[in-house]
């Protein structure tokens, strides 16, 4: 959410304007091109069959990957262990996702158009004044979104398998297939599925933060945050306040390196917090978050408690052989805001596009280099976004004075406009240089003042 284009702060590679929608590019390679190793040209044509690809995991990443693969003429298998899974999640999607993925408006429960940022000393700032009438942050229920994307993939020809991926046998030689072992659940067996195997030529691992595919290819570990959330049903009058407003609480009491939130859902609110470094104290942080929101959620009943891991950075190896990771399995969650749904869906689509292109619509075998193209494109397109958010987290989530300065900065209209433009359309927007300079000066001013106050505070306690 807080993705501000601070050109003066960082010497980023400013990507020139990017169109939010990426069409599948048709390769213009000639048959005899030897300058670059274009592996798909040297990989064998698959005579009488199409390329077989398995997508493990049926969330946003898996669903969109399967859809793009199926549309591209690849024989697609989508393996999902729990078709009615209510994945614990913040549930916020940016505006561009609705357009890019053709989402119907009825899967959006709520359109958030206002956000309130609350500092450690309860300074509350409203942001959202600069939003145009058609702009909003969509709040969705994951079970609805995931099911929609999966069904669309199935409509386009993907085979959805209700099963749990167990392990994968790596291929013996260059063009041998991968052998997947999974447990299929069908109604008859009543819970204990039957073991099955599946031979495929390539695998896309979209099975989330605890990815088994990642383990199978030895892609290494990452640090992750624990997000803890309680769903609270609050009385009608209090719910009216959250009609289209989400809140973000920052402070050492709420989280040492993340933020606490109150997000409105379909008919209740989700109150939660998260942390990377102090996972053992998550309950304490949750109590503090509830305390800070106490007046606004008073009289509420907790209807559900849930927790989930959030990756902090990509895994060391996102690709091995003909197996690629996308979404949370790859670790594509931004810092500072912890946003993952859009990036999961987008990376699934991008990876699938790379497979379709490399295999020429399923007619040829793919190679690792084809999948690497997806990594290249991904890194090039979204690296500035990730880096800016990382910088923001490092600067503004560092300490209470920094958080006070952060909230103070958010009161500025230019900041709000930049933030929302970057968040809603997922481009790092190059702003007006004069305003950027003013912003930089104001930021430094806020930080200096907050830190000066902190030193006064320390004098008081000593």
């Amino acid at each position, binding site marked *: 959410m807080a993705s501000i284009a601070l050109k003066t702060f960082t010497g980023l590679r400013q990507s020139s304007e990017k169109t939010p929608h990426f069409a599948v590019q048709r390769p213009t390679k000639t048959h005899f091109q030897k300058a670059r190793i274009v592996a798909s040209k040297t990989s064998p044509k698959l005579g009488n069959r199409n390329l077989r690809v398995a997508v493990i995991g049926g969330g946003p990443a898996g669903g969109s990957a399967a859809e793009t693969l199926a549309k591209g003429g690849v024989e697609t298998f989508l393996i999902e262990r729990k078709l009615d899974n209510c994945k614990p999640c913040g549930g916020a999607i940016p505006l561009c996702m609705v357009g890019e993925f053709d989402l119907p408006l009825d899967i959006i429960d709520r359109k958030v158009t206002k956000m309130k940022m609350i500092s*450690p000393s*309860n300074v*509350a700032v409203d942001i959202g004044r600069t939003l145009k009438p058609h702009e909003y942050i969509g709040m969705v229920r994951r079970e609805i979104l995931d099911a929609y994307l999966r069904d669309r993939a199935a409509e386009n020809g993907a085979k959805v398998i209700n099963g749990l991926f167990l392990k994968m046998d790596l291929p013996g030689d260059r063009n041998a297939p991968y052998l997947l072992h999974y447990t299929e659940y069908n109604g008859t067996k009543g819970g204990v599925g039957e073991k099955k195997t599946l031979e495929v030529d390539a695998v896309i691992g979209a099975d989330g933060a605890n990815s088994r595919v990642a383990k199978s290819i030895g892609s290494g570990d990452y640090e992750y945050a624990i997000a803890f959330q309680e769903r609270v049903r609050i009385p009608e009058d209090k719910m009216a306040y959250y009609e289209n407003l989400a809140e973000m609480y920052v402070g050492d009491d709420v989280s040492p390196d993340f933020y606490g939130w109150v997000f409105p859902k379909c008919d209740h609110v989700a109150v939660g917090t998260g942390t990377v470094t102090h996972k053992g104290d998550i*309950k304490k942080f949750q109590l*503090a978050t509830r305390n800070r929101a106490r*007046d606004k959620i008073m009289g509420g009943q907790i209807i559900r408690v849930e927790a989930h891991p959030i990756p902090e*950075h*990509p895994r060391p190896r996102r690709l091995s052989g003909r197996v690629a990771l996308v979404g949370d399995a790859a670790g594509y969650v931004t810092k500072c805001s912890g946003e993952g749904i859009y990036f999961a869906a987008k990376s699934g689509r991008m990876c699938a596009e790379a497979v379709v292109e490399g295999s020429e619509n399923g007619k040829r075998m793919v190679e690792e280099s084809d999948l690497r193209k997806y990594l290249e494109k991904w890194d090039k397109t979204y690296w500035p976004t990730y880096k800016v958010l990382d910088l923001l987290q*490092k600067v503004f989530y560092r300490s*209470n004075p920094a958080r006070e300065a952060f909230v103070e900065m958010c009161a500025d209209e230019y900041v709000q406009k930049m933030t929302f433009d970057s968040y809603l359309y997922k481009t790092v927007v190059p702003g007006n240089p004069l305003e950027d300079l003013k912003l930089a000066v104001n930021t430094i001013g806020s930080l200096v003042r907050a830190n000066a106050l902190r030193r006064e505070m320390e004098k008081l306690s000593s």
Partner: protein
Amino acid sequence: MSISMALFSPHASLSPYSSSHSVVTHKPLFTLRPKRSSFVISAAASDGNGGAGVAVSVAEEQPKAEAANGPVAAASASAVETEEEAAVVLNSFKDPRWVNGTWELKQFEKDGKTDWDAVIDAEARRRKWLEDNPESSSNDDPVVFDTSIIPWWAWMKRFHLPEAELLNGRAAMIGFFMAYFVDSLTGVGLVDQMGNFFCKTLLFIAVLGVLLIRKNEDIETLKKLIEETTFYDKQWQATWQDETKKD
């Protein structure tokens, strides 16, 4: 820890949120007056509750109470927590000059002009109070205070100038002795030193050192900061290192 979980679960399963916590007798009702003794009272009260570690948990919300030795600490931590919550409900931040979620500057007047130092002091005290006793943010009386209403020169006078004096003093002392030292070693006088490139570089390093390294720990901090700036980039590029190695 199962015991701390059990202690926390009453909070979690508390169906309707009620503000009727039992009043704990220890905590005296006090409004925040600009006296340091108020914090001493709160520390003493919670000390009476048992466990020196507990006073720490009131003063700074450190996880020490949880990590500390077992049920006793956890029990007293939870008791302090209820006491703290009760205290918060009973005495939220109150100050006669804090009106409508901001400091009323009229009340800070001294000799017809606003006493900015007093405003800074008051805000520091408010933030300290809230850090120790986090309060619920409320829609009825929102906090709208912005530190930028205090003019830049008030901040300069109070914070920048004393520090600048300190740092300039250090730089002057280092400069004098380095100039003397270099002169005694090489015979090059001060004016000639300023013309020499090597001496100018040394001067630059000395100034940077004085600015950046204020305490002994700063050296480590600086090293960590430099590593931090590129850490995220390295994590992202890890997948590419793999490719070059595989050839």
